[in-house]
């Protein structure tokens, strides 16, 4: 903002225009040297750093050299830019120069015209940090709050909020500042804010009462009320059309999920109800295998333990869950359904924290805190299932004739350190293991091979390194790499399947702010996995064909091979904000798949436009192409089909978001997915299909008392196995999905929540009286055709959760009761048939299941 008028001057060549002719001294007299003085600045208003430069994102120092012509009265008669700089600097310099006033140049005491060189130096204006401090509940202004801004060099500046809760701090050099906001009786809040030259950054901080106890308005008798920390800060709009992010309290308190964060995903719009004890994630009518899972950008093979009873990363170790139901960013590939990317939490840095929890499902523990005085922070968690303790006796008591020993466990360790203000490094080790052994002494199921000892062993582990560095104010580097192992073993009788692979994955992403309104993200993403596969199974039936008979009736075929998957990808994406409230994110991704020896090009674009600010209303839309390579077993020479290429999908998305208040928001999304080149067993890339529908979400975001939402999805998912075949309703189609849930803190440590679900039934295939297989001794049904042409009745269920929390001196103790299917609705899971398929009866979904848990935190 200030102009530095540098020293002037160099006398122009020829110096003064008033010099009429060359003077020749008289002979015999020494030559007389004229006395010349240069113009001297009398008045200089300076030149402001041009607004145009700031608008164009130019924030560097600049110099503009002018050639000025000054008449004998000291007035600038002409100003010419020597070398144009642009961004409005030239115009600003000329305009300022024309207001300059000089004492004129003189020659021998007489004023003369002169021409000089004049230099303007423009320095970028300082930054401004400002904000407003309000209460989390009710957003009332907090007057007298102290705001401490710590500069990168460690110096601190302090401001105090006014009656309206506002504060402002000007003349700051560009950089990243650590801002601490505190007020008496409120929980302090800290954040890092990056501000650029000439930029005024404004943030709203919402302070909650202290974590220990705080009198909650409306709670009588002055009793202390637990208030969990909930931080809400303004977020950058997503790079995707639809990004769902659940907050911490929602993750752990949704009824029917047993406090499992990842299971809460199943309550979001676009996600179908999972069949009981499967834990499948069915996103916008896609097959379960079409959705990819990531932990901090590293792909992992599964997200739920068997039965879907709990996820492979416990809630306590999660920092966030990002869920993209479609049209996701170019940084994600090899999937055409949805994306789930969970982030592991950074260890706490203030002191040692300990948590332990046990319920019918599992027992878990978490320890985290600083690692002595090393600067490193560590979190270690582990969990083991408790199912084996009670499931086997139940099976025996009910005469099921099976003896099961299901055990799963998972583990996580995170070691993190801030290298400096701009960079950090983190190492993580996490994994999961599910082992299930069933002994079936009876062989009456029609599948003799599924008798005796049946085993399943599934799991994975990863060692992951994550490096983040904000190289400059405009450049950020993020590198994540991981090595690990995935394994699946299954054996039953003479059949088995065993695969082990050792993935090496890496993602390098560079975000470069090109201009104020344009950021470029460039990334390289590679998946390399040597693997061994061995299997002894019956030949799979072709797509759309009934099986040839029981597994046990067919000679098994075998395969055993070692190979590798190699899937490198490049992607780039631009985030442009060309006008106020607008955001355009074009991107593209190029994937190579070694198995198919083919490249997949996937362009995508997302557009968002705020059409109103307060309350905010945003229109959004997107279109993109997505490719998903075939599975290794699909390209396998024995069990697969030769010559496969990637499955392809095109997503179209159009929607609107509206914020009624700070806590209440609604969204409506319409989507259409075109599916092509789908892999059909035994046929090749002959399949195709469409999925279309609409999702609505009315959500009350968590405050100190309540959170909840109503989500409704209307959709239709259709498939055909090959060209010319009619479109059929897809196996995982669920036309209507309604979820209503809410959780309310009553007071005195009590919290009560409910979830109600109403969804269409699954598709199924009716059976009738057919044939008798004399080799096996079982009847085979005459099944209706095409498969899955009938729908089960509506599903509905109410789940309830009650939490009670105490605050003893050492920490926090809570117990909870999570009851699934409170009114014990006999929802139809499918139909069971008698031995010759002449009679059928409903097989019901899960009955009422209460789960009681205890949790202690230090």
């Amino acid at each position: 903002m200030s102009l530095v008028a540098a020293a002037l001057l160099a006398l122009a060549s020829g110096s003064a225009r008033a010099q009429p002719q060359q003077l020749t001294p008289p002979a015999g007299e020494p030559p007389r040297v004229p006395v010349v003085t240069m113009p001297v600045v009398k008045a200089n208003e300076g030149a402001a750093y041009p607004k145009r430069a700031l608008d164009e994102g130019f924030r560097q120092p600049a110099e503009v050299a002018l050639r000025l012509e000054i008449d004998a009265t000291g007035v600038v008669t002409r100003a010419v830019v020597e070398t144009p700089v642009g961004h409005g600097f030239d115009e600003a310099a000329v305009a300022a120069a024309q207001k300059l006033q000089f004492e004129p140049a003189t020659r021998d005491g007489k004023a003369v015209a002169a021409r000089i060189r004049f230099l303007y130096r423009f320095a970028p204006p300082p930054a401004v940090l400002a904000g407003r401090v309000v209460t989390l509940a009710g957003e009332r202004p907090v007057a007298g709050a102290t705001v401490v801004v710590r500069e990168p060099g460690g110096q601190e500046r302090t401001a105090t909020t006014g009656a309206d809760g506002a504060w402002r701090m000007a003349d700051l050099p560009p950089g990243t500042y650590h801002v601490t906001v505190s007020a008496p009786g409120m929980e302090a809040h800290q954040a890092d804010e990056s501000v650029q030259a000439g930029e005024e950054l404004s943030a709203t901080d919402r302070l909650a009462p202290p974590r220990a106890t705080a009198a909650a308005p409306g709670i009588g008798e002055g009793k202390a009320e637990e208030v969990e920390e909930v931080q809400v800060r303004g977020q950058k709009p997503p790079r995707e059309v639809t990004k769902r992010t659940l907050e911490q309290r929602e993750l752990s308190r949704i009824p029917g999920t047993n406090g499992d964060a990842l299971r809460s995903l199943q309550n979001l719009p676009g996600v179908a109800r999972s069949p009981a004890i499967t834990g499948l994630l069915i996103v916008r009518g896609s097959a379960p295998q079409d959705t990819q899972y990531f932990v901090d950008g590293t792909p992992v093979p599964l997200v739920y333990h068997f039965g879907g009873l709990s996820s492979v990363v416990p809630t306590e170790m999660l920092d966030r869950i990002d869920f993209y139901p479609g049209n996701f960013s170019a940084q994600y590939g090899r999937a055409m359904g949805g994306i789930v990317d969970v982030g592991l939490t950074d260890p706490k840095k203030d002191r040692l924290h300990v948590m332990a929890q046990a319920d019918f499902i599992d027992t878990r523990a978490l320890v985290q805190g600083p690692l002595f005085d090393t600067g490193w922070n560590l979190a270690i968690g582990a969990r083991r299932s408790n199912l084996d303790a009670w499931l086997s006796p139940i099976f025996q008591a009910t005469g099921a004739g099976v003896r099961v020993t299901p055990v799963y466990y998972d583990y996580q360790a995170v070691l993190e350190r801030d290298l400096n203000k701009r960079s950090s490094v983190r190492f993580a080790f996490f994994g999961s293991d599910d082992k299930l052994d069933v002994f079936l002494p009876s062989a009456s199921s029609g599948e003799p091979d599924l008798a005796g000892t049946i085993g399943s062993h599934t799991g994975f582990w990863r060692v992951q390194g994550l490096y983040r560095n904000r190289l400059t104010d405009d450049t950020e580097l993020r590198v994540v790499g991981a090595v690990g192992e995935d394994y699946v073993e299954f054996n039953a009788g003479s059949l088995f399947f065993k695969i082990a692979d050792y993935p090496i994955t890496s993602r390098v992403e560079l975000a470069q702010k090109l201009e104020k309104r344009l950021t470029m993200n460039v990334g390289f993403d590679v998946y390399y996995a040597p693997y061994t596969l061995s299997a002894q199974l019956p030949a799979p039936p072709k797509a759309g064909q009934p099986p040839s008979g029981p597994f046990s009736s067919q000679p098994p075929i075998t395969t055993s091979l070692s190979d590798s998957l190699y899937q490198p990808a490049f992607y780039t994406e631009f985030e442009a904000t060309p006008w106020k409230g607008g955001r355009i994110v074009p991107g593209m991704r190029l994937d190579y798949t070694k198995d198919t020896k083919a490249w997949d090009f996937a362009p995508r674009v997302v557009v968002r436009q705020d059409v109103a600010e307060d309350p905010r209303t945003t229109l959004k839309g997107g279109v993109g192409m997505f490719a998903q390579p075939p599975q290794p077993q699909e390209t396998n020479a024995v069990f697969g089909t030769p010559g496969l290429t990637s499955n392809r999908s095109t997503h179209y998305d159009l929607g609107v978001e509206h914020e009624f208040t700070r806590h209440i928001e609604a969204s409506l999304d319409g989507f259409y997915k075109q599916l092509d080149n789908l892999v059909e067993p035994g046929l090749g890339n002959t399949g195709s299909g469409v999925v279309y529908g609409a999702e609505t979400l009315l959500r009350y975001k968590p405050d100190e008392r309540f959170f909840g939402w109503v989500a409704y999805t209307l959709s239709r998912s259709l498939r055909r196995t090959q060209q010319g075949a009619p479109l059929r309703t897809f196996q995982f189609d669920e036309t209507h999905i309604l979820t209503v849930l809410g959780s309310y803190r009553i007071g005195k440590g009590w919290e009560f929540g409910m979830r109600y679900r109403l969804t269409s039934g699954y598709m199924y295939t009716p059976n009738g009286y057919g044939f008798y297989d004399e080799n096996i001794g079982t009847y085979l049904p005459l099944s209706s055709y095409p498969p899955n042409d009938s729908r089960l009745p509506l599903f509905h269920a109410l789940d309830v959760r009650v939490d009670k929390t105490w605050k003893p001196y050492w920490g926090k103790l809570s117990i909870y009761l999570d009851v699934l299917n409170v009114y014990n609705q006999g929802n139809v899971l499918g139909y069971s048939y008698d031995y010759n398929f002449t009679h059928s009866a409903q097989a019901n979904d899960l009955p009422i299941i209460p789960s009681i848990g205890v949790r202690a935190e230090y």
Partner: protein
Amino acid sequence: MKPRRALPSLIVLAGAWMSSSCAPSGFANPQDVQTVRILASQADQPYAAPGATVKLEVLAYDGRASKPEPMTISWLPLVCENPTNDAYYACFQQIAGGGQGDAGAGADGGAGGGAGLLQPGVNLTPLLPGGPSFQFKMPDDVVTSHPPVPGAPVPYGITILFNIACAGHLEIVPVDPGSNNPVKVPLGCFDQDENQLGADDWVLGFTRVYAYAPDSGVTNTNPVIDHVDVEGQTVDLAQGYTTTRCTADRRDSCPHVHIGPVVPASSQEVNPEAKDIDGNPLHEEIWADFYATFGQFTDDARLLYQASSTGPLGSPHDTDDQFLPPNDPGEGLIWIIVRDNRGGAAWVTVPVHVQ
């Protein structure tokens, strides 16, 4: 390798779940033989050589209380050779087209012929081979004409034969021309009044006979039932077993009579086509199915030998079934059918006298 790993666990867990308490009760008991039933068939050579003559025997029983017409056993005089994908239902395309193969004659005689030449409304029973036995010649080219199966340890061929137990007579049933269902039932059982009979009165059964080249080294023989033990005592199959009726109010309170076949370990052959997950050779899986005209078994079937180990699964008490006598005295039959998972079978019939 990609997020598609839950399936094996799900299969196991779902199987356990579906076989547990959620399975509805009230269904007819599969072991209770009260209708027209086919219980088993046996090929004298479960794995036959090309060109060999194979003799089939079927075990069928008419358990109906009322028998307006007697049950007859018929055979489709067609050898379905190497149907598409080895699927039994693909044979009907061959049948509709007149069939192929070299069918022999049943023990009771009867004429061979192509079913494709026949029309609905024609009584087929007199035209078909009848009786519990049937023999055919394994086609000479059955192995060589079978499409190569990637991953199959040994080349093989397959023949499928159909038999019918019908308490009436057989006719061709027109197939809905608009149906694309690859599984069709082209035959029906009709009474004298041309009413099509239901599941209680007829059964359409089929049996697969695999063929391997003699030099392949792949053979299979039927399991052997040495004798039947009841409460540890060998039963004289000619005399049968005598017990007392159950007088308890609840079935669970009835006496539980341990009964089971004694199958020598020599019956559990090595299965050269299968290895375990670590590459070790596997053996046959052998199990026993139990049927009775009255009373009740606690299990429909018991596993005797499993593929991953040699020798019986524990003592006979571990593999025996438990028979609960009926509440009323009378004469009945128990069938114990022992099968291996390569098409081998054997059975015994035990007369039961309930006093």
